[in-house]
């Protein structure tokens, strides 16, 4: 007797009766489904609650919380992956409120100085608003499957992160693979002793650090590997609800998301180029500028300076230029380059695939195989129940 031969389609009443007499799903399974329902409801509530005018604004808070979580995981798992920490910390000297204050002051002056006709300004403003709204209204949930391969370069090219994020909304599984490399320049300020212990700067520069994160059902599993460390790779496992890399989805850790959530409102659009083709997609390019308030140390001011952010003389303010390449269809940022002083940071999507074309998150078989040769990084991981990989 085959299982599909016993029951055909039954009526709703019969289905209700079966549900009453034979309830399904264990508590753990139900809890996981309920958490996912709550997550989706909250996602919607957040986007509805924060509507301002015709544009919906996403909360900035989760981005900041995530940064903290990302720092924790990276420090715990991959010391040599610190390049990305610099991405987050290197320009974090000024609180957002102070940043906005300076930015709006300067914008006000610039607007007054611009001697454009009202008609021209209105037309340009509409285009800018449309584009910014498109970016802010991007929706990763519009695709059942989505995979994005990208790289992020920080420290003016000294640190590079190659990543691939995959999401399958049908199964709920996601994965994020990150590989970091650094040039010799990145290590030049390390203590001589550490450099010597590591076999020299060139040896350090050959180091490849990798975090492979799998969000599979209720599990979060991360495999840490580092070519400079002898011995087997390590893995960590804990409950997925404790992981922040997939809140609200795996794409929250893209450099472009930090720009949108933390910085975009501080920039003023200066130039728009339409009909730009990038990785085979129709895009629009925006050049934006902003003024970044340097921390006191950078302008030779006393560290005790009580109000560095109010210094609008120009000595403590640095011009930043942000160039964004925005996908016309989705509103996703496919490329971003931030130039400040002599430094730059760059984010480039190499491949973006949708639905049936998308690369799917790794399955249980792959994950089991991947951790088979690894050692758990702590007792808690060693004791963690991974039976979901066998289901």
């Amino acid at each position, binding site marked *: *007797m085959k*299982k*599909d031969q*016993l*029951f*055909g*389609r*039954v*009526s*709703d009443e*019969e*289905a*209700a*009766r*079966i*549900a*009453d*007499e*034979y*309830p*399904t*799903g*264990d508590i753990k399974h*139900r809890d996981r*489904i*309920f958490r*996912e*329902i*709550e997550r*989706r*409801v909250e996602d*919607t509530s957040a986007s509805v609650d924060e509507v301002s005018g015709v544009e919906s604004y996403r909360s900035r808070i989760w981005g900041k919380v995530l940064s903290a979580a990302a720092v924790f995981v990276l420090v715990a798992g991959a010391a040599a992956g610190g390049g990305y920490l610099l991405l987050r910390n290197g320009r974090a000297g000024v609180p957002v409120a102070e940043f906005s204050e300076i930015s709006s002051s300067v914008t006000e002056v610039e607007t007054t100085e611009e001697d454009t006709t009202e008609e021209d300004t209105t037309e340009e403003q509409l285009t800018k608003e449309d584009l910014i709204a498109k970016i802010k209204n991007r929706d990763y949930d519009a695709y059942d499957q989505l995979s994005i391969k990208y790289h992020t370069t920080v420290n003016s090219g000294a640190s590079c992160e190659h990543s691939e994020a995959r999401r399958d*909304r*049908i*199964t*709920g599984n996601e994965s994020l693979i990150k590989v970091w490399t650094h040039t010799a320049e990145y290590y030049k300020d390390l203590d001589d002793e550490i450099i010597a212990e590591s076999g020299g700067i060139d040896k350090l520069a050959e180091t490849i650090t990798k975090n492979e994160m799998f969000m599979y059902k209720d599990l979060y599993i991360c495999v840490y590997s580092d070519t400079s460390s002898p011995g087997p790779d390590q893995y960590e496992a804990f409950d997925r609800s404790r992981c922040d890399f997939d809140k609200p989805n795996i794409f929250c850790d893209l450099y472009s998301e930090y720009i949108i959530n933390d910085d975009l409102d501080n920039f003023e659009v200066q130039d728009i180029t339409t009909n730009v083709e990038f990785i085979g997609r129709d895009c629009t390019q925006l050049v934006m500028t902003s003024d970044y308030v340097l921390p006191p140390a950078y302008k030779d001011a006393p560290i005790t300076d009580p109000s560095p952010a109010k210094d609008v003389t120009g000595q403590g303010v640095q011009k930043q230029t942000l160039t964004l390449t925005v996908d016309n269809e989705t509103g996703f940022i496919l490329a971003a380059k931030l130039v400040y002083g002599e430094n730059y940071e760059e984010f480039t999507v190499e491949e973006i695939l949708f639905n*049936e074309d998308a690369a799917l998150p790794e399955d249980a078989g792959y994950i089991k195989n991947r951790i088979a040769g690894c050692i758990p990084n702590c007792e808690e991981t060693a004791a963690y129940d991974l039976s979901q990989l*066998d*289901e």
Partner: protein
Amino acid sequence: MTDSEITELMKNSPQQGHRALFDEYYSYVYAISVNILRGPASQEDIEECVIDAFASVIKKFDISSVTALKPFIGTVAKNKAISMRRSLTAKAGIIISIDSEEFREPASDECIDRNAENSVMTELLLQRIKELGEPDSTIIIQKYFYERNAKEIGRMIGMKHATVRMRCARAVKKLRSLLEDSDKEE
């Protein structure tokens, strides 16, 4: 918990209300979804449908307009499942017309007769499954209606999956015999 208690809870404490609604109707929504999605859908697809249905019910829930929760939830779940089935069959290259009987309410006398016949058969089948006694009836329903595997069933009823397989094989044999007896009686 009654519908009015759930409604009241959703009004005063939404999160607790959501949980109460979920606990009360999870099996029902799951059964409705399985019933429509059985065949082209995986376990994950069915779960996705259940999640989607509940999220939709909670988001669109209007206390003033919904008096009975069960029909409201059942309709949302059914629509979600039909929509997903269409999507899955389209992906698999199976073309099912929207006029197909699969998606259509019974319109002709013939359909009504056939449905009534099916209903009698399902009633008989459920009756015989019940006669198997526990845990065999649960094993059969979980395996053949909900399409769960032995490991999942084992976890639900606290039994080793090898034992579930063995009991399931015996229960199917017994069920076949009970159904044959029913045929003879008729």
